[in-house]
């Protein structure tokens, strides 16, 4: 029987043949993750964007900033709204219509990771305490689902936030917000002339070309490892993901502290040693991702 037919009919036997020799069908050893590449500023209409490829998995993240009223219980904080979408083009199994479970799961996980790793300081997003703050609308579109979507989404989200340029904003005496360079002219004169009523407030968030105002320069790195018959398969692609008994995603930050360990059930349990190996693999991945980010942002 030819290899392609054998692969379709007996996927587990086919995969086992490779794994027993310590390799995988795409030629990688069991412990090697795919190469990463990061590009920034790919969407010109967005305030910040980045495109991340891990092997063939592609995620595009874009940031749009809008001025909103902060919530009552956090008047000094801006907020971040993360949505991860798995559109129908990304894989054969996704369909248009309702948000899939995987997309909702990824959205929440990316939001949690960005929050816990303190990638963005919400206090920096405040324009006028209690009145105006920035809302960062971060959308991640997975253009190609070839496994480990969460890893690509986390990296793309961090890249887009780092690429984000917060425009100049000023609030005038009537409480109107003007965004853009021209808004800062004339506000100083108005303050001098104003006699009663509200004083004009002029708040400069940043100058237009200055970068890294939104992020705190922390870049969390995520790595998914699959468990297959007692072996650890690092960074499985989508074909391998379908065969895995369970997936463990570990997210670490720059200092090596663990930001998240996610194992959503599955067909097998993970022992302590296996989890320790997954954490070590995630730590080893930091350097590759850091290099890719540095290449994009230098």
């Amino acid at each position, binding site marked *: 029987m030819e290899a392609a037919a054998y692969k379709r009919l007996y996927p587990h036997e086919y995969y086992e043949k490779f794994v027993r020799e310590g390799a995988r069908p795409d030629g990688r050893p069991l412990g090697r993750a795919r190469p990463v590449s990061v590009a920034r500023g790919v969407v010109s209409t967005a305030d910040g964007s980045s495109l991340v490829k891990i092997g063939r998995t592609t995620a595009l993240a874009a940031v749009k900033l809008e001025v909103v009223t902060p919530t009552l219980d956090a008047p000094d904080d801006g907020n971040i709204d993360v949505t991860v979408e798995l559109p129908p083009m990304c894989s054969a199994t996704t369909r248009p219509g309702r948000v899939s479970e995987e997309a909702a799961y990824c959205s929440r996980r990316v939001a949690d990771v960005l929050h816990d790793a303190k990638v963005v300081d919400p206090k920096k997003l405040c324009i006028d305490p209690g009145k105006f703050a920035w809302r960062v609308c971060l959308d991640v579109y997975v253009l190609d689902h070839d496994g480990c979507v969460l890893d690509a989404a986390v990296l793309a989200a961090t890249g887009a936030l780092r690429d984000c340029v917060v425009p100049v904003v000023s609030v005038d005496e009537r409480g109107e917000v003007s965004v853009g360079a021209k808004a800062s002219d004339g506000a100083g004169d108005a303050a001098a002339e104003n006699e009663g009523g509200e004083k004009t407030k002029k708040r400069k968030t940043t100058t237009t070309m200055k970068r890294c105002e939104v992020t705190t320069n922390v870049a969390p790195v995520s790595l998914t490892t699959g468990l297959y018959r007692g072996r650890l398969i690092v960074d499985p692609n989508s074909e391998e993901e379908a065969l895995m008994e369970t997936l463990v995603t570990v997210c670490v930050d720059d200092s090596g502290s663990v930001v*998240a360990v996610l194992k959503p*059930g*599955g067909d097998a*349990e*993970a022992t302590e040693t296996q*989890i320790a190996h997954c954490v070590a693999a995630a730590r080893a991945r930091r350097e590759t991702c850091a290099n890719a980010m540095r290449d994009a942002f230098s």
Partner: protein
Amino acid sequence: MLSDIAVRTDGRTPAMMRQMHMERDCLERATGSARWEQDRSVVYAAVYGPMEIRAGKQDTDKLVIEVVVRPASGAPSSADKEREVTIRRALEHVVKTAAHPRCGIRVVLQTVSSDGGIDAILLNAACAALIDASVDVTGVLCASSLAVLPGVGVVVDPTEDEETAATATATMAYNFRGEGVANENGDGGLLPAMAAPEAEAEVLTTLTRGVFSEEAFLEMTVTGRDAAAAAFTFMMEAHDRYLAAQEAHMTTGLTARIEALALELEREQRGA
């Protein structure tokens, strides 16, 4: 590993869980039900099934499990939707889904009050309700919640205040099954070998928030397993007590009926 000093605000040591209460068969209309209580966190779980599922949602190979999580007040949020997915994935591993193709069961979890550690309590309650409903399971799903408190370290079964103050929290679920070994705690029943303190911890589901070191996480895996083993011991004792009470009820009922029949027969014979 964890200290024995009562350093927590409610007087517990780091390894102490809150007092657990479980009531089985508490909802009449459900196939199986359970109420799980850990101090002020209370959850009701109900299992309905086996049910017919419409053709679009059916699975020809296995049982379809639907999980519904309702909060104590208000409409279900996206966090509740996410809990539904997590609990469903854990239950799909524990329930013998291949034994019931084309059928479905629905597991409904209602939070009555929440004071920390609610994800673990939802899982424990779901497991207790499945056992009450006599669903075929491969093992007993036990969960525990943990937190890392600054200055104290890893603590088990945090209250809501402790969770807010923690630098990291985690929920761990384990599927205890297999050969039994003697249980030092409890009334001397058997404990599955994988739940014993010496065994390596095998985690089914883990969910974490916050930042922690690798050592802290591995400690949480082991401590979580010990706490889940305590929940297992408690659950098994509660089930045994319930079954003993049922048996006693049935036996007295039967004995009474046999005596009444014997009396009647005697009367008839004397009369005849």
